[in-house]
């Protein structure tokens, strides 16, 4: 009984954190811009507003158009089931769960891109092409990180990666894990289409990546996508926090507090990055990602030495 | 004795009929009757011990007899089609002469008479090439005749040398009967023996058509009618292989088998490789069969050269090759008649235009390149095994050659047999007389592959024993 309550509470916390994080990024950016900025809960208001609207569909769309937003909502939520948060063990954990974790996001990508193509808009086609290319490029980086983590912690579950052994692993492989953290940060930025890889706030369709794909989603569908995006961000943030804050106090309350602070901290960092950096040229994104891949390969060489 | 009289009677009767008869049909029937008689005779010779002939001769005899029977059966239908265009007096006469001398050559028991009969039999084929009486056929005839004559001269020189090699060691018996040559293995001077081997090998190999002695083949096979091509590619080559195998026997007896083997392997490999690259972009379906013939001569040479199970394969392959070449040449002849052309520029979709001959053509092709479960596959496989037991490099070259052959030959054959036929109307239709013999040949080869009769297997094994080098 306690377990179910536990789970529900964690999931609720996760939802709240997701919405908060988006607000925090906006707040940080506003701070750097010298503005006051929207309230931290602005995103929630947006979602509520969107949910009340009706769903306007283009005549070219089909049921695939719904699959994208639906999965965008479900997959990040489900992915959180695999992650340890603070000292709370994950709901599902088995050998090789990290592969399912990665490939579920693949499934998500399949359907978001498909639903983008469902509109027959050429902007969305453009966005799809970019999204596919960049996600294809970060795939190997992610796997290199996973190899390093698996090797470093000698386990094959996400819980194992970020759970009990992580502290020892940090002591043994601090440099390499540093690389992993950087890689995860890059992955987080790319996957969640943040600056410098993509600008979610741009107004020009031609330069968008992820945003271009959701041009035709309206009302509750857009709300699903936005909430899903926020959850996805938080999932990655939790990954980073689990990695960066390996030590546990052993008391659930403090651990949770630290973790929450960590997740919000990731939001702050991303906000800072978005404020101080400009968006990269499309062409140079490939180079940056390839560079990251090479850096991560160094990590592999170091760990298997 | 009675047999001899009977033979002479049959031969003279048939020649008489051919000379007197007024119609092409009657001559064709006569030749077929001779073939039937010959078939019966071969069966009799195989089963009895009237003539003391060895298994090698028996094998070639039965091969030739089956082939000849099929060809002459096809001849009945064939000649009745061109009733009024060509007179077949000379051709049928040559056919009779050929089979008579070929048989004599097979049962000959000394080198000189073997040589004479072989040359006569091969010269008897010249009218067959000339049958169409046009410019191309005369040139091909000329080349065949001339190159064969060069071969004849060289073989004669070889025999003179072998007798000299007997003289020089002061042997008492200098006659060139096989029993003498094979038994008294030390009565020859080795140097002269080797030189004579070279001359005789080149001489006889000119008739088999190993590269680079092959030059007449493509011309002769491409100009003559398919039915005669069948006889030459199946029959003449087989009997000249018999001559070559006698040579091998002689050299084995003299303890020079290593030399023979290396020579055979060398010629085998270069024949296969040359034939394989010659087949590319070859539009003439008869020429491609000529090159295929060169290739198979190479395969047989290789099989005999590598020894072991390769000899078995080679002997079996002689049999298969004779029948398959016979079958495919007849089928090609039918196709050529149906289209009036012999290049794939015009021949397309043969299996639609003349379904039975076209299909036979395709299947015979598949059998020729060694598709299981035809007998040719087993012989080929045995030769591959032999060559692998001998040397890996050689067998790899061999396999490479086989692949190239398929690439080159397949293109032409598939183009010819598949696709959409052009509407050339020649009025030709398949009749049972036109396709029965290739069908029968294919069936025999297939049967040999799936379940070889024990009697035939024993024959092959005995023939292998004859050829095996007792080092």
């Amino acid at each position: 009984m306690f377990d179910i309550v536990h789970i529900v509470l964690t999931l609720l916390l996760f939802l709240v954190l997701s919405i908060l994080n988006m607000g925090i990024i906006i707040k940080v950016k506003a701070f750097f811009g010298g503005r006051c900025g929207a309230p931290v809960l602005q995103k929630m208001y947006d979602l509520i507003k969107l949910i009340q609207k009706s769903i306007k569909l283009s005549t070219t769309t089909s049921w695939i158009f719904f699959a994208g937003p639906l999965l965008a909502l479900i997959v990040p939520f489900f992915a959180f089931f695999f992650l340890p948060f603070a000292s709370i063990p994950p709901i599902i954990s088995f050998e090789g769960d990290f592969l399912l974790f990665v490939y579920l996001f693949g499934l998500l990508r399949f359907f978001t891109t498909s639903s983008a193509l469902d509109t027959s808009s050429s902007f969305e086609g453009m966005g799809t092409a970019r999204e596919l290319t960049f996600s294809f490029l970060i795939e190997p980086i992610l796997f290199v990180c996973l190899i390093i983590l698996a090797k470093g912690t000698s386990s094959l579950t996400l819980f194992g990666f970020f759970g009990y052994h992580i502290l020892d692993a940090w002591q043994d492989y601090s440099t390499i894990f540093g690389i992993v953290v950087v890689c995860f940060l890059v992955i987080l930025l790319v996957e969640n289409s943040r600056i410098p890889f993509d600008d979610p706030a741009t107004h020009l369709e031609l330069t968008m990546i992820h945003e271009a794909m959701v041009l035709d989603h309206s009302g509750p569908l857009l709300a699903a996508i936005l909430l899903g995006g926020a959850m996805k961000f938080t999932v990655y943030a939790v990954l980073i926090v689990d990695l960066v804050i390996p030590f546990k106090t052993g008391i659930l309350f403090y651990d949770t507090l630290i973790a929450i602070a960590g997740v919000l901290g990731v939001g702050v960092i991303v906000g800072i990055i978005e404020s101080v950096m400009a968006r990269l040229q499309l062409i140079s994104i490939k180079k940056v990602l390839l560079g990251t891949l090479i850096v991560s390969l160094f990590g592999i060489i170091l760990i298997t030495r | 004795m009675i047999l001899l009289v009977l033979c002479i009677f049959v031969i003279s009767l048939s020649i008489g009929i051919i000379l007197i008869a007024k119609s092409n049909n009657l001559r064709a029937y006569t030749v077929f009757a001779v073939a039937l008689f010959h078939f019966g005779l071969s069966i009799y010779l195989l089963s009895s011990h009237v003539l003391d002939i060895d298994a090698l001769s028996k094998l070639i005899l039965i091969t030739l007899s089956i082939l000849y029977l099929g060809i002459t059966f096809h001849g009945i239908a064939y000649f009745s089609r061109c009733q009024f265009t060509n007179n077949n007096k000379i051709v049928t006469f040559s056919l009779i002469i050929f089979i008579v001398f070929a048989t004599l050559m097979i049962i000959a028991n000394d080198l000189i008479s073997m040589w004479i009969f072989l040359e006569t039999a091969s010269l008897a084929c010249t009218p067959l090439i000339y049958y169409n009486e046009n410019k191309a056929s005369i040139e091909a005839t000329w080349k065949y005749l001339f190159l064969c004559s060069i071969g004849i001269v060289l073989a004669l020189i070889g025999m003179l040398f072998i007798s000299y090699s007997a003289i020089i060691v002061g042997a008492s018996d200098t006659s060139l009967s096989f029993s003498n040559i094979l038994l008294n293995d030390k009565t020859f001077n080795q140097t002269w023996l080797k030189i004579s081997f070279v001359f005789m090998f080149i001489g006889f190999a000119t008739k088999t058509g190993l590269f680079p002695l092959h030059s007449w083949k493509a011309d002769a096979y491409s100009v003559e009618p398919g039915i005669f091509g069948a006889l030459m590619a199946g029959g003449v080559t087989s009997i000249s292989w018999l001559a070559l195998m006698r040579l091998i026997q002689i050299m084995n007896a003299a303890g020079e088998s290593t030399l023979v083997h290396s020579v055979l392997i060398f010629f085998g490999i270069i024949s296969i490789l040359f034939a394989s690259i010659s087949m590319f972009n070859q539009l003439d379906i008869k020429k491609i069969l000529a090159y295929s013939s060169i290739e198979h001569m190479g395969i047989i040479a290789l099989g005999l050269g590598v020894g072991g199970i390769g000899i078995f394969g080679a002997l079996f392959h002689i049999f298969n090759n004779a029948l398959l070449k016979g079958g495919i040449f007849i089928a090609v002849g039918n196709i050529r008649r149906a289209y009036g052309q012999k290049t794939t520029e015009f021949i397309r979709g043969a299996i639609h235009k003349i379904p039975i001959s076209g299909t036979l053509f395709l299947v015979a092709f598949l059998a020729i390149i060694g598709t299981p479960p035809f007998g040719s596959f087993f012989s080929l496989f045995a030769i591959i095994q032999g060559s692998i037991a001998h040397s890996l490099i050689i067998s790899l070259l061999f396999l490479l050659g086989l692949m190239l052959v398929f690439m080159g030959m397949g293109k032409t054959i598939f183009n010819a047999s598949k696709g959409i036929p052009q509407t050339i109307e020649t009025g030709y239709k398949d009749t049972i007389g036109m396709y029965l013999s290739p069908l029968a040949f294919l069936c025999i080869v297939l049967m040999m592959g799936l379940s070889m009769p024990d009697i035939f297997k024993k024959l092959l094994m005995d023939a292998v024993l004859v050829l095996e080098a007792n080092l």
Partner: protein
Amino acid sequence: MNASTINTILLLVVLINMFIMGSNRIITAIKAVALQGIILALLAFFSEEFTTKGTILFIIIVSIKGFIIPLLLIHATKFANINQEMKPLIGYMPTMFIDALSVFLSFFISQKLPLLPSHQETIIVPVFFATLMSGMILIIARQKAITQVIGYLMMENGVYILSSMLTGSVTFLAEIGVLLDVLAGVFIMGIMLNHISTTFEKGDVGKLTSLRE
């Protein structure tokens, strides 16, 4: 007949070879080959003991080699309107040079071969090789069919040297050498037939090089 006489006559045969190599008219070459054949027949006849069978053989060979075949050839050239030119594929001087080389080669080879003592002092074997090779060279170096027949006749003369002089005891083989001449006759027929078939078309009579890839 002693060895030196035989050698002198055989040298004459070699000289005739050279002469044919150098001659640029077909009729001259035909006549030279005929002469060579007669000389060889005489040589064989006088080097053996006198027998009736030998005489008959001698008469047959002289008539075939010396008269029938050459006359047939000459007739064929006229019948088929064949130009008297040799049409060399390789020039006259190079041919002669190659032929000379082949003679040296023949002598070189023959030294290495084991021979009966009686044959060692004569030059039968080298002359055989030289004549054989000369015939081959003529066939290779000249384009026309008729010159190739001449070359073939030379080869055949070479074989005759071998069969009559070296292996005299195996007379049967020597006799069947005559059969080769029959072939030569067939060739000539072929040339005539070719003439018949090509009279109506323009083309190089007697070259027979149209069948190729």
